């Protein structure tokens, strides 16, 4: 990655002498069966960029929702510049000067840029009607200030995600925000867009606006944040300067583990030694191409090996996994499993050939929330567990029992609805769904994202075991440590094309970063152009 342009150092003058612009005092929030926030006290100063960190389930999102008026706290109070405030609705928080930028851009995709920015407070002409000329002009000026040039009339959904986020930020700033809350803003941005975002955050700081920055990315936190607040299991653990805080210390506070333990065991649960891979590939994909998404991707998977698929978000990782499982429409390319080339590429055909995909979005593409654990596990295997279209309950129960034990799925019974389980257990149910098909190839797209630490460790060691048992595993992960410690070999993608491959001792963090950054030869930019013409 290019060395960052100097981000303004923590401004002593602006930040630390100022009083708290937003405070949460002993805030609690309970949901049936869960205490999401337990007596959390925390304050935000004008002009500071404040990191909010914690593992999944620590209560970050709940805290944000309390601060922005989505939830009402069950106990405690909020104060703005010393005055107690209550927000009944998000709008009231907004009016008080608290704006939020969410992970998923929360604007209206079908409406134009200008309409999105001015929704709810459109400029009027003297007849009381919306003054579009003024609206478009002001939108242009506003975005120019961020260094973004977009036609204000364009529907939002025709823009890139990064640009959409700038529009959201422009909206926030133009409603006179005193506090801007950013929830994982960089998770779907390209590196260059991240730089633009950081520059804008610098702008906000100069204007004395407080930024609450939620992110899992340590590098970013240390680059732009002044102070940090750590939450764990709904409780406040620590608030303090970020500069003097060691990374390992921070991680150990987030995980609630001893520092020495974090150091010793590394972050993941993979064993150090590699696996014995077979000599002939079980799955070979050649020339996978899909308009604008994949460009001539070829990979081979060997039995007994974990192949990592590296790359930044939007590099085509998930699309490649989808293509390998028949779920992406391809313009060209073929799949060969055990020497047989698949004719029609559909999920059903891929499954029959022994390829299983654990999709990235567990909620949207994985679980069927209203069905039981049992039915979710046997979903794909149902035709095999039935005779003449009539399902056999006994066969199902046998399979389900085996996998619930093996994967240690925690549910009150196999008949519990899967929607009621925790994220980690849902993920195990999905793994069981695929493992009971006895696949030859297992494609795992972000298998440990959004699940708790314990389940994460279990899933990681399961991946290890599966490879040892002779499965070919493809592992996609944004977590670089997971990728490096889990994979025997890593294929790196960039711009929908293969950018490089690491194997043996090269499977290491610095090598991977080197390929991810633009050091390697660049096939990505030329491939699309070449792809356009034929036919």
């Amino acid at each position, binding site marked *: 990655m290019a060395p960052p342009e100097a981000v303004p150092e923590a401004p002593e003058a602006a930040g630390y002498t100022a009083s708290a612009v937003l405070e949460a005092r002993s805030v609690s929030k309970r949901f049936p069966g869960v205490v999401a926030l337990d007596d959390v006290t925390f304050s935000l100063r004008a002009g500071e960029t404040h990191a909010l960190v914690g593992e999944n389930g620590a209560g970050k999102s709940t805290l944000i929702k309390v601060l922005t008026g989505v939830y009402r706290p069950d106990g405690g109070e909020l104060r703005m510049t010393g005055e107690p405030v209550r927000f009944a609705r998000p709008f009231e928080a*907004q009016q008080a000067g608290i704006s939020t930028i969410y992970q998923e851009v929360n*604007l209206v995709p*079908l409406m134009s840029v200008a309409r999105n920015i001015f929704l*709810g407070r459109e400029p009027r002409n003297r007849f009381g009607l919306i003054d579009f000329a003024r609206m478009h002009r002001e939108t242009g000026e506003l975005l120019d200030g961020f260094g973004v*040039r977009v*036609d204000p009339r*364009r529907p939002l959904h025709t823009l890139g995600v990064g640009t959409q986020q700038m529009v959201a930020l422009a909206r926030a700033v133009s409603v006179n925000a005193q506090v801007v809350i950013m929830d994982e803003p960089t998770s779907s941005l390209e590196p260059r867009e991240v730089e633009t975002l950081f520059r804008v955050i610098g702008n906000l700081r100069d204007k004395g606006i407080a930024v609450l920055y939620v992110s899992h990315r340590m590098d970013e936190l240390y680059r732009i944040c002044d102070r940090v607040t750590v939450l764990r299991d709904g409780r406040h653990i620590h608030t303090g300067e970020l500069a003097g805080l060691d990374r390992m210390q921070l991680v150990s506070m987030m995980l609630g583990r001893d520092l020495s333990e974090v150091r010793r065991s590394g972050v993941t649960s993979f064993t150090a030694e590699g696996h014995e891979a077979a000599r002939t590939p079980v799955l070979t994909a050649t020339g996978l191409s899909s308009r604008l998404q994949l460009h001539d991707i070829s990979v081979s998977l060997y039995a007994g090996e974990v192949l990592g698929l590296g790359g930044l978000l939007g590099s085509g990782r998930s699309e490649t996994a989808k293509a390998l499982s028949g779920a992406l429409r391809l313009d060209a390319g073929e799949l060969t499993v055990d020497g047989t080339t698949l004719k029609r590429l559909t999920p059903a055909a891929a499954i029959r050939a022994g390829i299983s995909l654990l999709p990235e979005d567990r909620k949207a593409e994985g679980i069927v929330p209203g069905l039981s654990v049992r039915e979710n596990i046997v979903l794909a295997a149902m035709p095999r567990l039935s005779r003449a279209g009539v399902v056999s309950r006994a066969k199902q129960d046998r399979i389900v029992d085996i996998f619930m034990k093996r994967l240690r799925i925690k549910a009150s019974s196999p008949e519990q609805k899967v929607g009621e389980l925790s994220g980690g257990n849902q993920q195990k149910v999905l793994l069981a769904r695929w493992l009971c098909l006895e696949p030859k190839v297992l494609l795992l797209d972000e298998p440990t994202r959004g699940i708790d630490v314990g389940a994460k460790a279990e899933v990681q060691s399961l991946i290890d075991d599966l490879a040892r048992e002779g499965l070919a595993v493809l592992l996609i992960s944004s977590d670089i440590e997971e990728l490096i410690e889990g994979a025997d070999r890593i294929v790196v993608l960039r711009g929908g094309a293969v950018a490089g491959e690491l194997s043996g001792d090269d499977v290491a963090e610095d090598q991977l970063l080197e390929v991810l950054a633009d050091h390697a030869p660049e096939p990505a930019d030329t491939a699309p152009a070449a792809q356009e013409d034929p036919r």
Partner: protein
Amino acid sequence: MNETKPATAAPAPVPTKAPAARPAAGAEQTGRQRAAELLQRQGVLAVLLTVVIAASFIYPTFASLDNARGVTIQASFLAVVALGMTMVIITGGIDLSVGSVFALGGVLAAWASQYGFLAALLLPLVVCGGIGLLNGLLIARGNMAPFIVTLATLLGARGLLLALTDEGATTYLVPEDSAFGELGQGSVWGFGHPIIIALVLFGAGGLVLQRTSFGQTLFAVGGSSDAATLMGLPVARTKILVYTLSGLLAGLAGALNAARLSSGVTIVGVGMELDAISAVVIGGTLLVGGAGSISGTLWGVLLLAVIQNLINQIGSLNSSYQSVVSGGFLIVVVVAQRYLARSRRST
């Protein structure tokens, strides 16, 4: 199922050096996209004009001013109902109760016309607006599905109507030569008052939709209810208002119809909700919400009316062909829309 989810893979190869000069990712829409958008917006108008022009050549009687008056007066009542329906559908909802409410409005107006013009106009508006309000409250505050709530009020309003008319046995008449009767029967240059009222309402509706905050909020609620909530837009209030408006317009249309027929006919309006939805959908408004236009609905209503009129002109044809043709049109339009939307999305 959000159809309009933007493609996240939009590539943004952007030079870092001169960020101010950067074009946004794929700043230019392709000609094909623009053509598709135009077709989506104005496709119905083109079809309508084609049909009208072709019919004028083939059936000389069709092109007469008299026939135009007839067609438009026929269409005006459905148009007023479809106006409210358009706004409801833009918010991603649906209002099945309008047919019953239309009939109820007519009965109420006819009954109240004995007490004068104002009563005849106000009573249906108050009651039908009330039913719309009830729809809105149940949907927005009760968090219930619009489809089923308005299905229930469809039955309820019809029940109320029957209760008011001794199970449909009584038909209230509008006094002859009353001001209220004039509202339905009078005309300006031969064009009936309901036509003029419908046009005025469409003009006002267009202004409201395009040039007021309320209109923008309708689009925002339909486009992404979550985003609208997080932006602090009054989502619930907007929904309540839009269903109330739909009830009001359906009641008004019913009252106008009663004034025109001089009586509160109890059997009108059955299936009208589906005609209105057809007109709205043919007019290019997306049933998933978030996009649509008032003018499209007007063309949609006129297209349906012209088809009906033409089938009447072709005397030899069974009048049942009308619904066959309308159904066919509906399929063609929605399938075409679907493919247009696809080609717009694939950059």
